[in-house]
């Protein structure tokens, strides 16, 4: 069986006052059925744009998908009409965004937001939809679900709103959920509750999940496979364990070294990634990380390395020196 989602050579560009920005610059990856993968990166890495591109939610203008295929369940989403695409969104692919206050409709009750999806996508009648809405709220752990159905988003806490978003995303038994920074706006104890909820529900219902985040802890806890993005490209991809314990791209290495860890005593100094994030309007043909890279050589300015096998099977890095660096680590 082919993978549930196969992204091939996806390019998304934005025309801005400062010039053309290649927000997503040729990325390819797959998601298997029922699998959780993470896309990790910092601001401007293209991680959110890559997800919005899958759903064809890029505002045009200024943005545009310029190349690539998005094969979902065997169909290329780029070739579908807008009407067909609307049927996919919310039915086959659910979405959970960072800020539940702006993604829920403030003038509709919680109940209505869920029943609307069920009526639209499944042709459910009002009574059936309402029964199912109650079930869904209970499933996402909202106490006193009957009362909550009649409330409006502003009457709920941030954590509860995110639970509602998850209920909406799951309403039509999707095959895939895309969660873009689903817990970034939440407090840490609520973040933990929401992540555990998403983990147990996606497992139980066999839904695939793409988690987009900048939080390396969240990735370590929840994802089996990881794509690391930098300046619009996937610079490293592989199993979470390999990415964290045998990183092959200098950016991943530097990123992991720079984070302070709660489980380690005070160190004298952190080891930050040098320099500033890249200006996406000023990228040349070379590797975008080279100005911050401790291992850059002349070659890195001449061409942009593409993903190549590194380390164990299924592990890829986009660095000319990745195998050399790994050998050096072993020697050290």
């Amino acid at each position: 069986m082919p993978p549930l989602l196969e992204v091939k050579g996806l390019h998304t560009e934005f025309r801005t006052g400062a010039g053309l920005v290649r927000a997503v610059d040729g990325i390819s990856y797959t998601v298997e059925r029922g699998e959780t993968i993470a896309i990790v990166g910092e601001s401007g890495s293209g991680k959110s744009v890559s997800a919005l591109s899958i759903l064809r939610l890029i505002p045009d203008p200024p943005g545009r998908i310029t190349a690539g295929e998005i094969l979902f369940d065997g169909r290329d989403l780029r070739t579908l009409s807008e009407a067909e695409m609307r049927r996919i969104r919310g039915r086959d692919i659910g979405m959970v965004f960072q800020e539940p206050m702006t993604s829920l409709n403030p003038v509709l009750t919680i109940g209505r937001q869920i029943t609307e999806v069920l009526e639209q996508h499944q042709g459910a009648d009002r009574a059936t939809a309402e029964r199912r809405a109650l079930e869904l709220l209970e499933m996402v752990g909202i106490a006193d679900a009957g009362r909550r159905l009649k409330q409006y988003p502003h009457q709920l806490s941030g954590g509860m709103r995110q639970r509602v978003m998850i209920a909406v995303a799951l309403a039509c038994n999707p095959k895939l959920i895309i969660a873009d920074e689903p817990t970034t706006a939440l407090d840490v104890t609520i973040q933990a509750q929401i992540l555990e909820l998403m983990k147990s529900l996606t497992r139980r219902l066999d839904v695939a999940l793409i988690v987009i985040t900048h939080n390396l802890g969240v990735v370590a806890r929840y994802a089996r496979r990881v794509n690391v993005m930098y300046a619009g490209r996937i610079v490293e991809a592989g199993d979470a364990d390999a990415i964290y314990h045998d990183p092959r791209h200098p950016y991943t290495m530097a990123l992991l070294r720079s984070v302070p860890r709660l489980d380690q005593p005070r160190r004298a100094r952190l080891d930050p990634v040098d320099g500033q994030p890249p200006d996406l309007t000023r990228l040349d043909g070379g590797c975008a990380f080279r100005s911050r890279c401790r291992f850059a050589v002349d070659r890195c300015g001449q061409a942009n390395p593409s993903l190549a096998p590194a380390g164990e099977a299924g592990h890829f890095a986009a660095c000319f020196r990745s195998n050399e660096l790994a050998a050096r680590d072993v020697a050290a």
Partner: protein
Amino acid sequence: MSGGANQAPLLEVRRLAMHFPVSEGIVLSRKIGDVKAVDGVDFTINRGETLGLVGESGCGKTTTGRCILRLERPTAGQILFDGEDVGRMDRKGLTAFRRRVQVIFQDPYSSLNPRMKVGDIIAEPIKVHGVEPDAKRRQARVRELLSICGLDPKFTDRYPHEMSGGQRQRVGIARALALDPEFIVCDEAVSALDVSIQAQVVNLLEDLRERFGLTYLFIAHDLSVVRHLCQRVAVMYLGRIVEMADGDELFDNPLHPYTQALLASVPVPDPRVEATRAFRPPRGEVPSPINPPSGCVFHPRCPMAVDGCKRERPVLRELRPGHWVACSEVH
């Protein structure tokens, strides 16, 4: 606690309370209660020390910082800076206080005036306080401050929007340093920054503390950064300090059930460590500070709560040397 026994703390906060009135109705508005943002908080900070103040949104950590800066007039309690009561300072005393105490805010986008050049932003406090009337020498001082903060002195002519988030936060730090302060309140000073930039700014703050003998109150929700930067840490919940101890002691041996739950909720960036961790987030959510639970404010979510917790408000007790806990069930 660090510091000699005879050395008085630089900052002392005593029984601090800050209640905001809550009203209902627009035309005939009437007061219906108080938000007890800070509800009886005590701590001290010694010279050269960094105290971390942590907790989730609404716990009162930012309001505590604002009271110390005298951006709020507290409902009750005292704040002593270098032995002087901040609440009773006259105009002259307050001007001197504002030179010695500075703040670094979270958002480097909204805390810098977008119409001012970086050089003018940093020079402004020097001008306002009349520290350096000579324009040339003031410019030299601005360039010095920029380079202290790791920025090219050429940046004086730039506008904030021409800089990255990390660079902007460095400008905010340079401005805070302009008057040679002794004490800086860092309110979520690195929270808005990307991971790769955050470590640079954390290192900068640490270097500046050593170089200029600064004292910090570091208000943050990111516990990993706090563990790295702070010698002592106080954990707040719903307006109260529930636990306070030296950094490593607090993170390695948390005693209060809320601190334990908080630490257990933070995922560690290592899949092997995560695979071995029991992960049980605390149930429920933080209750409203308008009508907080009786007794111990954490009791409705606490796995250890007994009947007495509903009635009696636990006091902060020193259970081990330097390790303070507000829980009647921990001994």
